């Protein structure tokens, strides 16, 4: 933020936040965090031009700005609409938004195979999270879903178009990271597909990052496919001296085995900044070839949101909820009726090993 730039006040779901001019509604909402931030399937802050396509981040602008308080007639894509001073936005407080978002989730799922049990992305899939949070319990679509053949993009990446939601993130990533147009979209409408022209191999050093930007399991790492479920592996932050990229990665390990290497992601599922301030894209060598613990300097276990299924591996020290009662009441918490005390099960003078057969209440009455 430049010195002296005036901050704009924007109110999202009745929470006011101050942001510099040019910020999008989505980024202002992310500043507040939590449920206020609209979900985003196609927007990726590190990719120029992304966003506006998936329509999951639609919000209602109930007041345009301080100068022009008229509401916007339609719901707007928060990832591509910049804030104005005094703007009032409704996200989860607007029934219109909830309804439209439910519709979008249903649309995204009608042609999605829902093959989560055999999909490598399951557990860290944006579409899975989105449909849990904003979708309905069942689909009303009764027709055959569209399918495609699997395509190999080079020897390390597999494209499974059936799962694709056409967010265009990988197209932007391929265009902006590799500085050459190798990767695009063919056809239009619902039969549009991500394609390299005549399945040309993607040779560039940074092309592996398309796997990380994919919100669903359409682009998967062939060195990891079907090796393990992500929630059985434990993520740790690690680094190595790499001449091509920042070398700061996340290793997904089980025991001493490195199953997968990915870039580090922040809480919004986007690639984190590296310690030198650059975007943390990693090169193909780090991603696909360095699969030994000895290649890496391991820093620490990665902090994973405790709502994520990945955190069920308990690899990180379990954060016990803090007990505040002793500080307030100056005594230990007391249960209202401790069944063990009433039944005297806890009586220590009876040795269970001396009882023959299963223990009965009568055994304790002695």
């Amino acid at each position: 933020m430049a010195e002296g730039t005036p901050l704009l006040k924007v109110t999202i779901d009745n929470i006011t936040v101050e942001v510099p001019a040019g910020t999008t509604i989505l980024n202002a909402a992310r500043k507040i965090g939590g449920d206020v931030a609209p979900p985003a399937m196609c927007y990726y802050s590190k990719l120029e031009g992304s966003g506006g396509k998936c329509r999951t981040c639609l919000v209602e602008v109930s007041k345009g700005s301080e100068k022009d308080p008229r509401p916007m007639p339609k719901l707007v894509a928060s990832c591509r609409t910049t804030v104005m001073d005094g703007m009032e936005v409704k996200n989860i407080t607007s029934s219109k938004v909830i309804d439209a978002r439910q519709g979008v989730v249903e649309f995204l799922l009608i042609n999605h195979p829902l093959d989560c049990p055999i999909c490598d992305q399951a557990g860290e899939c944006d579409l899975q999270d989105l449909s849990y949070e904003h979708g309905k319990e069942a689909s009303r679509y009764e027709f055959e879903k569209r399918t495609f053949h699997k395509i190999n993009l080079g020897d390390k990446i597999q494209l499974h178009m059936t799962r694709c939601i056409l967010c265009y993130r990988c197209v932007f990533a391929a265009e902006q990271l590799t500085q050459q147009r190798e990767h695009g979209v063919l056809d239009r409408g619902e039969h549009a597909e991500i394609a390299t022209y005549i399945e040309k191999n993607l040779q560039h050093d940074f092309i592996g990052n398309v796997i990380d930007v994919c919100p669903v399991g359409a682009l998967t790492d062939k060195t990891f496919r079907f090796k393990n479920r992500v929630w059985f592996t434990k993520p740790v932050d690690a680094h190595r001296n790499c001449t091509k990229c920042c070398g700061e990665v996340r290793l997904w390990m089980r025991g001493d085995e490195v199953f997968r290497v990915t870039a580090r992601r922040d809480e919004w599922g986007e690639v984190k900044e590296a310690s030198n301030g650059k975007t943390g894209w990693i090169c193909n060598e780090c991603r696909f070839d360095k699969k030994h613990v000895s290649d890496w300097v391991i820093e620490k276990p990665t902090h994973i949101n405790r709502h994520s299924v990945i955190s069920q591996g308990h690899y990180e020290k379990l954060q016990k909820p803090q007990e505040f009662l002793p500080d307030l009441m100056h005594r230990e918490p007391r249960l209202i009726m401790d069944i063990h005390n009433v039944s005297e099960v806890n009586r220590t003078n009876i040795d269970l090993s001396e009882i023959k057969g299963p223990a009965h209440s009568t055994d304790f009455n002695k």
Partner: protein
Amino acid sequence: MSKKLLLEKAHVEGIKHYDVYRREGGYKSVEKALKTLSPDTVVEEVKKSGLRGRGGAGFPTGMKWSFIAKPEGVPRHLVCNADESEPGTFKDRYLMEFLPHLLIEGLIVSSFALGSNDTYIYIRGEYAWIVDILEQAIEEAKTNGWLGKNILGTGFNCNIHVQRGAGAYICGEETALIESLEGKRGNPRIKPPFPAIKGLWERPTVVNNVETLAAIVPIINMGGEEYAKIGVGRSTGTKLISACGNINKPGVYEIDMTISVEEFIYSDEYCGGIANGKRLKACIPGGSSVPILPANLLLKTAKGETRYMNYESLSDGGFATGSMMGSGGFIVLDEDQCIVKHTYTLARFYHHESCGQCSPCREGTIWLDKLLYKLEHGQGKLSDIDLLWDVQRKIEGNTICPLGDAAAWPVAAAIRHFRDEFEWHVNNPKESQIKNFGLAHYANPIQPITA
């Protein structure tokens, strides 16, 4: 006989060629504009004329022109949208085919007003032969000093380039058209920024329909205020209507927006009545995207007033009981037509033409298509009609460009006005395959609603 401004000379022998066109008074507006008016006065004249965009949305052209950003040292562009792909609309084709010089003339004046030195005509790929006509006209204009450098010694340079599209309906949307013109995939851009700020090659751009640009010629010739006197209210000037369907005389008609819909359909000067002595069932008054109206709502508004062929009267009653002027593709359906089949055909078209960029349109249009296929082929359920309604509701307004709305509106209007025909299809699956629902009560007079 209503006043003709655009098609007055359309039947003069050899009007396609420069000599005849010039002899008939062509290029007078260029002389007038370049020699006696400043660009700002031209914009002012267009504003005074009240000309509204003829491509479908009906946005005031003068206002659109005044929005164009004018940063120092950045070229501006005018783009002529000749990607006329709306089913039922063929007015631009007629205009370009018979009066190519009228478009060129309008383009030169408009380019002068907007300061565009390189003007583009983005023409539909299927109009292959019209490209040749236009290119020949441009060549003739150039050799006679109306195009090129230093036109009429005023120091204004202008070149017109014709670019063919590759057969995509979506490229008629202005930002998709710009993308396509730049050589990219024709996906609509996310607005803002609007083309008036950042359009073609990130330069300020105005995109106008062929008919709008041709209408600039009479506006300059007769003056904006004179032009505004033609027509009624905010519907000024003349409008080309391309009439088709079950009528005796399909074709392109120029109307001055004062005649009633009834007169337009039944008078011998225009459509000449319904063909084969049948009765009118329904009509789409402005190209396939606008809501369909049953006969009773078409001829009279819900208030019981006569409906006229102009922007305000056609949209009277909103979407509940009205429609839109749209692009002027007037499709008439007689009593033998099946509304379900007709709606299915449109849904199939929008499914085929959706660009696939944003999810509601990409997935929603295929859903509409499949549901309507089911209903049309006697496999539907009553709940499918409600589902159709809900799906169209979730597409409308949630998409990047108006194609989503265009796909949703015809379906919504068909269910709104012809629900009993849909239900008949569900309840009589076998019968619906061999015969039609017929006219039913759609032409019966309706009780006027009084507040």
